[in-house]
């Protein structure tokens, strides 16, 4: 005789009643029900009804994330051909491959919201949509490869972990997969950095130099402080944490790890206030951030042009064999 208690996980209540806003009601009522659902922690699937504001907000958020993964490939890609050992070559190829894989996952989420991938690529190349600041800067050596894989990925993962419970369920599920895959990248990056720090004078100096060049963009990466009440992405629970919360978390975890290697962070003001548990730091250059994300960064145009040319060179394959569907 089967033990009834063993059946409970199977026969327990379904986790999700189909939300009422999917019923055919007047728009204002649907909007109110949707808002109540989301603010109470309810999830939204691709096939649910969504107010335009929500759909637009999620799409913009996911599209920028997808663009960043795609553009993020370029700074590291140059070094694939130059990896100095077989193992580093394998690790870097796997990492860059993962980034392309993440771009695929994220563009898929965006496609299912109604925007075809070709339209997204067009908008990226035309400068109508953005990608994260850190990918607009040059890489000058192998030390940069280590620094990006470690600290840039770390800053990104702090943001990504906070998205695992996004109200938009397809995005949340994708973020869980991405976070799982990203943990390996940070280890690879940290390994490269530690190896060089313990290596020759020149290697150690190169790492210190890389830290000095990347610190500014890293501090700008999570964005300027903004009041919680004004943030629509927070309101819709597309994201759960503010820019400042993410930046503080990054500093809390990584400043000690940077300092334990004997590296000097180029911000004399940077210090933890023990009383409040809050890090003080020099105000990041928000003008620089604005300039860079509007494609006026040192490598913005070069990289967009590189993408444009690569796309043109393979257009014939898409036209004949891998043609993406037109607008839904």
């Amino acid at each position, binding site marked *: 005789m089967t033990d009834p208690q063993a059946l409970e996980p199977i026969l327990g209540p379904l986790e999700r*009643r189909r939300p009422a806003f999917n019923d055919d009601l007047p728009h204002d009522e649907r909007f109110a029900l949707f808002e109540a659902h989301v603010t109470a922690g309810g999830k939204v699937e691709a096939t649910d009804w969504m107010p335009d504001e929500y759909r637009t907000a999620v799409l913009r958020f996911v599209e920028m994330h997808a663009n960043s993964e795609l553009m993020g490939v370029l700074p590291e890609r140059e070094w694939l051909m130059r990896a100095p050992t077989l193992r580093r070559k394998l690790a870097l190829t796997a990492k860059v491959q993962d980034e392309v894989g993440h771009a*695929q996952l994220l563009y898929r989420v965006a*496609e299912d919201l109604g925007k075809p*991938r070709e339209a997204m690529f067009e908008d990226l190349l035309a400068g109508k949509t953005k990608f994260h600041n850190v990918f607009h800067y040059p890489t000058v050596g192998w030390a940069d490869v280590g620094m990006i894989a470690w600290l840039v990925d770390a800053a990104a993962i702090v943001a990504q972990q906070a998205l695992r419970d996004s109200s938009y369920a397809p995005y949340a599920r994708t973020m869980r997969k991405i976070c799982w*895959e990203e943990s390996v990248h940070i280890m690879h990056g940290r390994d490269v950095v530690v190896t060089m720090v313990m290596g020759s004078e020149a290697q150690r100096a190169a790492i210190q130099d890389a830290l000095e060049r990347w610190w500014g963009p890293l501090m700008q990466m999570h964005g300027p402080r903004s009041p919680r009440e004004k943030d629509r992405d927070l309101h819709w629970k597309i994201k759960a944490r503010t820019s400042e919360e993410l930046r503080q978390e990054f500093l809390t975890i990584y400043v000690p790890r940077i300092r334990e290697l004997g590296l000097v962070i180029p911000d004399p003001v940077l210090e933890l206030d023990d009383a409040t548990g809050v890090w003080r730091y020099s105000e990041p250059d928000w003008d620089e951030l604005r300039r860079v994300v509007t494609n006026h960064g040192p490598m913005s145009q070069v990289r967009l042009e590189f993408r444009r040319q690569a796309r043109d060179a393979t257009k014939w394959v898409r036209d004949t*064999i891998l043609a*993406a*569907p037109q607008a839904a």
Partner: protein
Amino acid sequence: MTSPRLEPWEVFRQEKDGAPMQHGGSVMAPDRELATHYARELFGRRQESVRLWVVKRADIVDLADQDLLQPPLDRSFKKPGGYVMRDKLAAARVVSGQSKPKARSK
């Protein structure tokens, strides 16, 4: 010559032997062969799956009709929660003088 267009293929994966097939995500592909390749790449390149099912999204029946899945009348006779016997059992123990059987250890 009209070329086949990319369309979404859903990928289900099995984490380990005996586990249920779980939805992993989707790939865009023009046909079955490339869909299989891409499914392997996106959901199996790290040896993280022991089996994959790859199926055209257009071939999936999506049933979300709440009249069918969540009909309104009481169906508690179909669930363990519909059989609450605590008081009856307590009364039976009083009559029999027996104590409640010990809970089985897990």
